[in-house]
């Protein structure tokens, strides 16, 4: 069986083809169309506000991809992924603002891109440190380590120490020209969006390719049964740490991207709620699929926006509702997560697959 549905008369004659990116010309065309929509359609056709919303979707999806890798493909339940986003964000901020870059690099606008790379690496290493207990700790006991990662990183190190560098109180102000790539300064709506799109596409490609390699198959073997995986000669500890590194690095890049989309960096951007939210995103999207993470992120952000639009007219009659809107939103998303797990446990990705199948098979149902 092939990984994807193939039209009548298409057969693969080698395993390499079976694992290929684009199995039929139609799929290739569809993907190029999608690429065109993401890179040209959205920034040209949508109004600025909605481009910003799409940026937030991409940022959430970037964070959720790492969580997907850990939970969906390696079954390491992580409830502290926000910490690594925060590490990436702060590394990048610190590098851009305080690192003595050579003039040449700043003039060429390479400081920020380089800081994204460094942020990714550093967040990956930071994540590996908290992955080390996996050598002995398993299951629910391990959840505590990830929660500890969140509290140690954000609530202690970032809030109490890093934020106070230079005598500031809480947030670090980021000048609007700090994030500069080549000749372009990351400001307005469209430029951060395009940066997000490029980074997200790269990340999806990296993840999808990793999952096709020996490493990816090892991760999935560990997910299905880690004892069986180790008897088959897979170094479980090494592969778990590798998963942590990759997921942490992705979170770090996501965090470094956030520098270009915000005017001040504060630990309050990375509460424990963010970590839980990322898990919620992949639950809604569907565990164990890459496009699930993106669908989940889109669902989460868009529902939040629509909820806001629905609640705004109520403000005339009930002013209190705006003040406590964030709480209402939290409660609502809690309900959504519960509802998804009860009624649609495979998430949006599964529903998407069903819809696709329906049209592929139409007019026959088999």
């Amino acid at each position: 069986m092939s990984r994807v549905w193939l039209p009548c008369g298409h057969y693969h004659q080698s395993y390499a083809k079976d694992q290929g990116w684009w199995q039929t010309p139609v799929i290739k065309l569809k993907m190029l169309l999608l690429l065109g929509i993401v890179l040209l359609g959205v920034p040209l056709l949508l109004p600025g506000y909605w481009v910003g919303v799409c940026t937030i979707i991409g940022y959430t999806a970037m964070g959720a991809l790492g969580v997907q890798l850990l939970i969906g493909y390696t079954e390491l339940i992580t409830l502290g992924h926000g910490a690594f986003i925060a590490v990436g964000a702060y590394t990048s901020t610190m590098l851009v603002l305080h690192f003595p870059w050579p003039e040449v690099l700043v003039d060429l606008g390479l400081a920020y891109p380089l800081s994204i790379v460094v942020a990714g690496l550093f967040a990956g290493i930071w994540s590996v440190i908290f992955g080390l207990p996996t050598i002995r700790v398993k299951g629910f006991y391990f959840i505590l380590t990830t929660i500890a990662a969140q509290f140690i990183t954000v609530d202690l190190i970032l809030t109490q120490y890093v934020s106070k560098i230079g005598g500031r109180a809480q947030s670090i102000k980021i000048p609007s020209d700090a994030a500069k790539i080549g000749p372009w300064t990351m400001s307005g709506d469209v430029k951060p969006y395009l940066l997000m799109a490029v980074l997200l596409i790269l990340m999806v490609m990296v993840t999808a390719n990793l999952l096709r390699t020996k490493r990816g198959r090892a991760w999935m073997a560990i997910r299905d049964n880690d004892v069986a995986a180790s008897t088959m000669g897979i170094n479980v500890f090494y592969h778990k740490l590798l998963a942590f590194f990759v997921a942490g690095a992705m979170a770090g890049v996501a965090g470094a991207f956030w520098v270009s989309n915000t005017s001040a960096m504060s630990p309050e951007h990375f509460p424990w709620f963010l970590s839980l939210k990322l898990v919620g995103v992949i639950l809604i999207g569907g565990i164990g699929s890459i496009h699930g993470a993106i669908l989940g992120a889109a669902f989460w952000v868009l529902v939040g926006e629509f909820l806001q639009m629905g609640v705004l007219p109520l403000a005339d009659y009930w002013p209190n509702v705006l003040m406590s809107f964030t709480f209402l939103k939290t409660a609502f998303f809690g309900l959504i997560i519960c509802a998804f797990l009860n009624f649609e446990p495979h998430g949006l990705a599964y529903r998407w697959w069903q819809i696709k199948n329906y049209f592929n098979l139409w007019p026959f149902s088999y």
Partner: protein
Amino acid sequence: MELFLMTLVTGIMVGGIYALIALGWVVIYKCSGVLNLAMGELTLIGAYVSWWLYSTGIPFVVCVFLTIIIGIILGILTERIFLDRLIGQPLLSVIMVTVGLSFFFRGTAMFIWGPSTKTFHPPVFPQESIHVGMLSITPVFFWSFLVVIGLLIALVAFFKYTRWGLSMQATADDETAALSLGVSVRFVYAASWSIAFITAGIGGALLANINGLNINIAHLGLVVLPAVIFGGLNSIPGAIVGGIVIGILENMTGTYLTQIVPGGIKTIVPFIFLVIFMMFRPHGLWGWVRIERV
């Protein structure tokens, strides 16, 4: 020396409350094998409900009883509405439902009662400290500790000597086998969530009397997780010992380490300690070590 003893005693007393909340955690784990990540929010709800009842002028003891009754109702409702369909589903989805529940409870509580800090007014416990030898103990801690000890004994007895407690342990061991032996798993789930609501509610009401009532109570409920893990997830004595150890650790850090390492080290230290501790004992002190087979 006096400072050391004072810190120790305060630590033990706060630890008692932690032990109570930890017990709620362990009860749910023992019955259904689920790590209930909404425990902090159950504490929050309990604290707010008792504060709300108290502010209408009902005496505190009655408030606590009413909180217990509301807790039982909420526990049954939670099980019926959110968890009933998930019996027999993978554990991961049940745990994630508790994450969803924690969002829901937190959002609802904050929406109803608002983010500002509430205090019990008039104060429930007298302000003058009780003097025992050279120690002086704040009455809040003293009475909380007594209540907690009583409840702990009651719950341990419930598990050891009643039929319901036994059927809960059977469900924890093997859900399918328990079902085939005529144990009502739905009832056991409902009962375990009710117990969790009760312990969290009382713990929350007491914690709110100590520190004032705001969203941080949920965080305090989460600080209990290290206590649970320290004792081992399915051990009731472990929860009690863990709660007290974490209470002492936290207060000792607050007294001695805060001068050296400023900032919020006090609430973080249990987590740091546990991460290191788990490297040596990955199942806590008395958690069951399951032998894994392919």
